[in-house]
């Protein structure tokens, strides 16, 4: 890093060790083969190198550039555009707290503040043991479960400051942690490999956690004639049950 601080140009990135290169090149060929034009595989390839190192390193950028016959500048330009590609290693468990308006107002701001204090780290930092990194994230399409916390991009819905602190404590203690929607956590690197486009081969992961929590089913339950907490016992029947279909 000293050369950067002095304002000198960075040295060319080191290539991956031969065995790593060979293994990743095989994966890369499979990903590239899924697209009519090779460059379309660049985002998957960046996920792939992130799966190798926990972030997108200069070596990872060099690897992607070689596979796609691009310059490292072209690959860097793409990698720096997307927030999921990290320039520093993530923790084994990367914790994202939604602080977009709705989650923030419902308590996401307080969760994020208390988590930072609890862990002794700030936004985009990693704990000294390398276990937990934390960042505030934008809307993750789970507003009906607010406030939402993501760990390695699995959903932890309806969080409180207490539940979020318990969550990171459990993770650091090595206890099994189950998302409300998603599969038993794997490492950030293993998650990045799924994002690259390789199926998660652990048994049961696709079926884990059901079809959705109470919010996903709220309208459907009403349509089935059930009641929701706090609603009057009105029987609600969907029109399609009345034989009115054309």
């Amino acid at each position, binding site marked *: 890093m000293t050369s950067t601080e002095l304002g000198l140009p960075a040295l060319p990135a080191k290539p991956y060790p031969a065995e790593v290169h060979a293994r990743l090149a095989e994966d890369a060929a499979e990903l590239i083969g899924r697209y009519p034009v090779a460059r379309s595989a*660049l*985002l998957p390839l960046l996920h792939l190198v992130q799966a190798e190192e926990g972030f997108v390193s200069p070596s990872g950028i060099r690897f992607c550039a070689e596979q796609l016959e691009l310059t490292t500048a072209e690959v860097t330009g*793409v990698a720096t555009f*997307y927030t999921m590609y990290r320039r520093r290693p993530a923790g084994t468990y990367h914790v994202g707290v939604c602080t977009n308006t709705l989650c923030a107002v419902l308590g996401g701001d307080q969760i994020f503040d208390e988590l930072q204090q609890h862990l002794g780290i700030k936004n985009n930092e990693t704990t000294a043991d390398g276990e937990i990194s934390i960042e505030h994230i934008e809307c993750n*399409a789970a*507003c009906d479960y607010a406030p939402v916390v993501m760990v390695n*991009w699995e959903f932890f819905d309806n969080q409180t400051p207490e539940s979020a602190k318990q969550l990171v404590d459990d993770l650091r203690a090595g206890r099994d942690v189950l998302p409300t929607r998603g599969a038993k956590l794997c490492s950030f690197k293993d998650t990045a490999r799924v994002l690259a486009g390789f199926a998660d081969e652990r048994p049961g992961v696709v*079926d884990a956690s059901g*079809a959705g929590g109470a919010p996903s089913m709220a*309208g459907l339950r009403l349509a089935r004639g059930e009641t929701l907490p706090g609603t009057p016992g009105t029987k609600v029947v969907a029109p399609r049950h009345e034989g009115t279909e054309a």
Partner: protein
Amino acid sequence: MTSAEPAEKLLSPVLSDCWDDDRPWTLDTYLRHQGYQGLRAALAMPPDDVIALVKDSGLRGRGGAGFPTGLKWQFIPQNDGKPHYLVVNADESEPGTCKDIPLLFANPHSLIEGMIIASYAIRCDHAFIYLRGEVVPVLRRLQAAVAEAYAAGYLGKNILGSGIDLDITVHAGAGAYICGEETALLDSLEGRRGQPRLRPPFPAIAGLYACPTVVNNVESIASVPPILTRGKEWFKSLGTEKSPGFTLYSLSGHVTNPGQYEAPLGVTLRQILDISGGVRAGHRLKFWTPGGSSTPMFTDAHLDVPLDYEGVGAAGSMLGTKALQIFDETTCVVRAVTRWTEFYAHESCGKCTPCREGTYWLVQLLRRIEAGEGVQGDLEKLLDIADNINGKSFCALGDGAASPIVSSLQYFRSEYERHLTERRCPFDPAASTVWAHRSTHESATEREVHA
């Protein structure tokens, strides 16, 4: 439709109908719910007839703009010798929007079936799902469902003996709201920075790899199979004349029961609140969005606006993604708008000056107003900058950034002024949290200051 309409007429689960069955994301369960029957019906028709049917059904895009889906398909030039592509926009990222992700998590096959029908109609043999990256559980189920569909002969070569081929590639994004804009999505899918393209040419002429391309939202495509199985007349019997059909309304925020409420287009927020338990106990509606943060906000004066494309438009906003974010009287509108504006500044792709620079300066102004450090003239400056972004940016992200500012100043200008005159935010953020009632319920209402 008025609020006097009996509640039993209100809901119409179609997309969500099988979500409470056993493992609804599996092919077996989907087949028990007429799964892939729409595809069989489509393959028995000439492709142009499929396009005509979807066009005549009146289905409009569910991703925000409401463009007629069948018309988009019809724009694809045929017999032009070029490959055609279908790209599904599953980059759901608009603040407040949370319909496609639960849909794909519960029933990914409804999207896949719709994609095969659409691909058959537009003569496409390679389709893509661009899913935002931050939803790995959904990605797993999509990957698994696509693999199941291949194994069962719904994808690959000679689908169901029809002579038609189709491959689907599931593609995970990497965190960029702008990629929900269809031309930025295409650039991203080509392995570039996700920046919008100049139009024309539109994607129907020069889209992915400069070939004719249809870009459709998840919910739009998933709505196609039921039209094939039940017919356009059935579809038009739901909803309103110009906005036919059913849709997922996503209720969130300060309500008793947030969640997905699938109903015919044209219901009102009052109706949805009436059946779902209303605003959270002891509080009242202050402001809400009809379709995400980019759609101008509404107040309690708009409870009876029909939530279809025309109704919301006539009331001065847009139906958008039907993301009904509800905020009660404990919420500071300046805080809410500041946070949304920080989002737009973060997500601005940097391509055009009005959006890149404008959103930056809006954030600076809003932060100091929220902190009680604003000065006279700041509100006029906010409106001036918003006016220089709205309609003058390269894509709709800029327009979206202006929406919450202009609409909140329209309805809550006095609240902005209180931040200026009192030199502080008069709200207690603790009162807005979901756990506020557990400890500080009385102070939550006592400190409420909204005039």
